């Protein structure tokens, strides 16, 4: 069985087209590294803002200087009127603008509490959140220093993001995106490896290498792919994690296990798609429909609890949801270890189910294709024999 297994592995992985290695290694790892580098500046900075300066007092100048000195903001435009700034927001050149009202200083000193309006685009959720938060902090600081500089604020708040101390975007998003990419990769590669013997009409040949054993053929197709994808995903995870709190051994082991079972479950699902539809194009399309938007459903960007019930059910069926849950639990350190076991058991269950189901439908499909290939071969031989008879007759 071992020699059959090794022969089949060689035939599937080393005697095939460049496309397989492209989708198995180059694209998932390359796209993951690309995504990580995209967030290399880690936190949102230099958000473009504008000012409509209706007041020309010292206080207005001080406000402008304070806004200029903030690293989060980039004062890009001093508009003549609101219309100019509003159109800059529409063009995407500004995220927010501040109107410094007429007589700001005079009215402030008279305790008339003039309101400073801040107009924010609202379209880009994250950038707007950071911009308005920073503008509020800057203006409040300037205001607090006017009359009550010597009186401290009685309450100060500090917001800590556990497991991601700096609020690093790579930690927030890229960790999840890497898992999502490998989730999709496992489905696509599962589809590719499952379907190319069908597409190239070489099921009989592949079974020959596997010494006629469909179990050997299935294992030789699935195992190397799962291992390669798993190693790739763990390398990308470790690369991404370097900007966060150092990983503990527990975290490493638990996340590795989660990634492995996610990949095994997804590759099993890929084989299932092929077994059910039987055509690479359609099966790839199905894998794309299921795996492509999986990240949107997995609850990391938009929480699961805010989704409709039916969507939550669908999300529950995605291995990615559970793998991300384990990843996020492990960011919290040892307190997340115990509950993550329960989630891991679920992932193991999924991996077993999809592989048994995938193997079953693939066995049926291979059986059908062996018959088809035999019939085709017999037909071809019959045609050849007929042609030979004709030729002899002609002679």
């Amino acid at each position: 069985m071992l020699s059959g297994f090794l022969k089949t592995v060689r035939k599937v992985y080393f005697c095939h087209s460049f496309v397989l290695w492209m989708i198995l290694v180059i694209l998932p790892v390359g796209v993951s590294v690309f995504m990580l580098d995209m967030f290399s500046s880690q936190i949102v900075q230099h958000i473009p803002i504008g000012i409509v300066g209706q007041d020309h007092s010292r206080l207005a100048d001080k406000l402008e200087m304070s806004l200029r000195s903030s690293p989060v903001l980039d004062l890009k435009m001093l508009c003549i009127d609101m219309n100019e700034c509003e159109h800059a927001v529409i063009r995407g050149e500004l995220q927010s603008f501040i109107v410094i009202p007429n007589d700001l200083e005079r009215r402030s000193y008279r305790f008339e509490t003039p309101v400073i309006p801040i107009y924010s685009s609202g379209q880009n959720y994250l950038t707007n959140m950071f911009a308005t938060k920073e503008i509020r902090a800057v203006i409040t600081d300037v205001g607090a220093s006017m009359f009550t500089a010597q009186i401290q604020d009685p309450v100060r708040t500090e917001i800590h993001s556990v497991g991601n101390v700096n609020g690093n975007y790579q930690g927030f998003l890229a960790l999840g995106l890497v898992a999502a990419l490998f989730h999709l990769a496992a489905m696509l590669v599962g589809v590719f490896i499952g379907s190319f013997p069908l597409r190239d009409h070489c099921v009989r040949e592949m079974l020959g290498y596997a010494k006629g054993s469909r179990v050997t053929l299935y294992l030789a197709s699935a195992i190397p792919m799962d291992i390669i994808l798993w190693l790739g995903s763990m390398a990308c995870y470790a690369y991404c994690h370097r900007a966060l709190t150092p990983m503990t051994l527990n975290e490493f082991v638990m996340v590795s296990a989660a990634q492995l079972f996610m990949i095994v479950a997804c590759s099993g699902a890929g084989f299932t798609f092929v077994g059910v539809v039987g055509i690479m194009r359609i099966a790839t399309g199905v894998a794309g429909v299921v795996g492509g938007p999986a990240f949107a459903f997995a609850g990391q960007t938009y929480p699961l609890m805010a989704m409709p019930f039916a969507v939550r059910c669908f999300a529950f069926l995605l291995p990615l949801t559970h793998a991300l849950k384990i990843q996020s639990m492990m960011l919290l350190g040892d307190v997340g270890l115990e509950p993550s076991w329960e989630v891991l058991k679920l992932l193991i269950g999924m991996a077993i189910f999809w592989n048994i189901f995938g193997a079953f439908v693939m066995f049926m499909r291979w059986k059908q294709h062996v018959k088809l290939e035999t019939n085709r071969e017999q037909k071809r031989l019959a045609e050849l024999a007929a042609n030979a008879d004709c030729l002899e007759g002609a002679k």
Partner: protein
Amino acid sequence: MKMPRLLKVAFTEWKLFYTDPAAVLLLVVAGLLYAFYYPTPYIYQTVSKVPVAVVDLDHSGMSRQLTQMAKAAQQIEVKAVYEDIIQAEEAMGREEIFGFMVVPENMEKDIRRQKQVTVNIFTHGAYVMLHGAIGTAFSTCAMTIGATNKVKQIALGKRVPSSQAMAMREPFPISIQTLFNNTGSYSNYVVPSVLILILQQSLIIGICILGGSRAHRRFRRKFRESPVENETLINRYFGRSLAYFVHYCTFILFYHCVIYNIFDFPRRGEFLPMAVFAVVFLAAVINFGMVISQVFLRRESSMQLFLYLSIPILFLANFSWPTYLMPDTMRALSYVLPSTFAVPAWISIEQMGADIYDVAPKLYTLAIQAVIYLVMGLWLTHIRDKCHFEAGDM
């Protein structure tokens, strides 16, 4: 180039969208299915009532007041009040809560003694949206307590009336107005960008699946030698492009009239900018697809490639992470893609009601892309028509 022949090619290609199973999936089903599939998770639009906890180490009247205020906040729901931090950490580990606020020991006593206290707020590091919602809700509550006490301190210390003390604490209050997406809806932020990406990706993959403007396509066994397959390069190229163009114009119209209505997205787009956008965007994407399609030898290879690239392409379009924070090489790479300019242009037109002058620079860039890809597409198809290759089904 004769019009009847061109239309015949276009019509033959359009029929293929509904008869070739792979094309149906990409050019018909994907555009319809994804338009409903993507917005569904965000149907409630905003996140509210995020489960959180309060760790009360003070047990004073003020700490109870703070807890009550947190319970009244819309964004969060206080699930428990714990006696120590470990209990809260364990609950967060089980994901029963996603954040907690620690009311420090002797908070009330320290505030009365005019000593500054620090209220720590802990959020789950993996969830960016929850981090914002929890942080804002808890800090608003704590700052309100702080503000009330500061006003008292000012009034007593400076011997001024409370109204003046309030003005001294905050001489110029701010008022934040949202110009667009007033409700802070997450779907308004995500879905419009994704819809444009769906159009681009499904169109490019669809063109590649059908072999672009190639002659004698091998997968069309019965019709490989038909006159339509054997048309002149110009007729083939523009005829097939016309089919894609008309087909995808209906998608844009469908999104504008149906999807935006069903999911209650703002529809501020005027006719002229939308029409110009549709023309230059589809021209850029179709020609880009025609170029890319000449690279593949197998029909499904484009699908395998572009499915991986959807997420980075979306992020390159200034969707969530600002483009100016990306490395220069990535920014340069993004100029190759129509979506880099199309996504911001569509958002400006449809979500913000931009006029033609506001979006002109982006539309010009799309038009330039369309021309460059048109020339490349014609040239590559010409080369491909001359080649004979054995591998694959294209």
